């Protein structure tokens, strides 16, 4: 590293703004705004899953619908160990279990291309759900489990911590040579393989790393309710939401999925509590279709285009 080449002004912006936001978020529970804590917990939660989803799927173009599976693994980790082990250990268990599952599933399925990979990963969600249902009803003779409840503040701080780690990891991956390798895989896998990129390992590892956060966040979200069963733990919506949010926000930039998650979550909050609650899926759908048709690079792409125009497009765009 050549330290004299560091652009301090740029470093101030890239590190300073996130730090300020982090401090504001850090004191959130002290503002006496109870709804704010719940709302921002939701924001953080959806940001975590859409950013971690984008880590793998955004770069490689392999659309994974397995998010609900890893999330559900986390929920079940909370149900199984939440009463006996400290919460941070359970979060680790959820993350590690998801990593292992994703590694195995990745090793088996990442040779599948396009829609086949999406279908298989979605099948994994349904498979886990049915297997656990079977296990509970036929073998244990129960249905669902009790989860130890945690306070809103605890949930919030855990989410904040996972959020910070997720963003850091996403940032590091994107800036490192593996981020470049992932992009090259997404654009032309054959060329990547012949240029020395260990395509299979890069894909499997990134898939598994992204699953860690989905599992960890599942543990935390499980403690918001006292009861879980396979249908709530392995809810297919949890597979679609991160993909929709990331596409809406734009995947060419680390802030795209963040923006998408915040806007979608907020709209969801408004619509679900207002008089339009029966129509919110419909509105989501329409928004998504409009995004894909008119904003192929998502909201972030639109913002970048506008920014470039304002700045007078001094330098040629380096990323499409």
């Amino acid at each position, binding site marked *: *590293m*050549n330290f004299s080449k560091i652009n301090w002004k740029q470093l101030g912006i890239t590190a300073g703004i996130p730090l300020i936001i982090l401090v504001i978020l850090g004191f959130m529970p002290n503002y006496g705004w109870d709804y704010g804590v719940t709302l921002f917990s939701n924001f953080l939660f959806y940001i975590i899953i859409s950013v971690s989803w984008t880590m793998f799927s955004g770069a490689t173009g392999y659309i994974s619908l397995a998010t609900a599976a890893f999330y559900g693994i986390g929920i079940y980790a909370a149900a199984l160990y939440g009463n006996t082990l400290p919460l941070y250990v359970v979060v680790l268990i959820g993350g590690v279990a998801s990593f292992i599952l994703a590694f195995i599933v990745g090793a088996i399925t990442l040779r599948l291309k396009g829609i086949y990979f999406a279908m298989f990963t979605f099948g994994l969600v349904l498979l886990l759900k049915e297997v656990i249902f079977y296990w509970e009803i036929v073998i244990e003779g129960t249905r669902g489990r009790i989860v130890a409840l945690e306070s809103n503040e605890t949930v919030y701080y855990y989410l904040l911590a996972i959020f910070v780690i997720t963003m850091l990891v996403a940032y590091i991956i994107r800036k490192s*040579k593996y981020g*470049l*390798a992932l*992009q*090259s895989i997404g*654009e*032309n896998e*054959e*060329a*990547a*393989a*012949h*240029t*020395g*990129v*260990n*395509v*299979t390992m890069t894909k499997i590892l990134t898939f598994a790393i992204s699953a860690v956060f989905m599992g960890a966040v599942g543990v935390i979200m499980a403690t918001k309710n006292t009861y879980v069963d396979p249908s709530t733990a392995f809810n297919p919506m949890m597979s679609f939401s991160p993909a929709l949010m990331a596409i809406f926000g734009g995947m060419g930039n680390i802030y795209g999925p963040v923006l998408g998650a915040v806007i979608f979550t907020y709209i969801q909050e408004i619509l679900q509590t207002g008089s339009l609650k029966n129509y919110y899926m419909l509105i989501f759908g329409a928004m998504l279709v409009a995004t894909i048709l008119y904003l192929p690079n998502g909201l972030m792409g639109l913002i970048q285009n506008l920014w470039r125009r304002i700045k007078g497009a001094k*330098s*040629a*765009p*380096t*990323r*499409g």
Partner: protein
Amino acid sequence: MHLLEGKGVTIHFGGLAALSEVDFYVDEGEVVGLIGPNGAGKTTLFNLISAALQPKPGEIMFKGKKINGLKPYQVCRLGIARTFQTVKLWGSLPVIENVRIGSLFGAQKRLAVDATTEAKELLEFVGLSDVAYAPAGGLTLANQKRVEVARALATKPELLLLDEIMSGLNQTELLEAMELVNKIHKKGVTVVVIEHVMKAIMGICDRIVVLNYGKKIAEGTPQEITNSEKVIEVYLGEKADVGS
């Protein structure tokens, strides 16, 4: 010992033998031409050498070590790089990033800073310094082929497989491409070229291998090949055409 050697290399696609029992070798420092009619198995042979496909049966040795059974990235890291008949660049990435990936993941892995320097040097070498930061997808075909060459060179190959880098180029571009192959050769890289442009092949190759319907039908110096009855019959056509 040959740098690259194939023994009885065979591969079937369905019932069709794309290559059958081809023996070949490439010595260090050579420029070898691989010619033959469309569908003769030239690109298939490249795919086998670069491990995109596996021979069945047959054996391919690089520096005395068997390389079939390895993955493409392993073969690349051993020192065999290739370009593609239909250009396979990462179109939305800037040209320099395309080349940097080669430096970062190739035979001699570089640190990020060194990879950038090396990529710049290679772009200079192939004459693309001006467009280093433009998206690779927006370049002309001739330039995209040059980016592929630069990317392949960035992996630090001892053996470079060039698949039709001269097809579809105009006269000026063709001369430049021939010059580029000569420059690569002078760098000490052994080159195998697939080409249909006879003038280019005859001008740059030390030795030529001719394939037809998956079989090797001739091998020799450009002179011997142009005079071979068999090659004229299946590929070159009338003698008068050669070199025109």
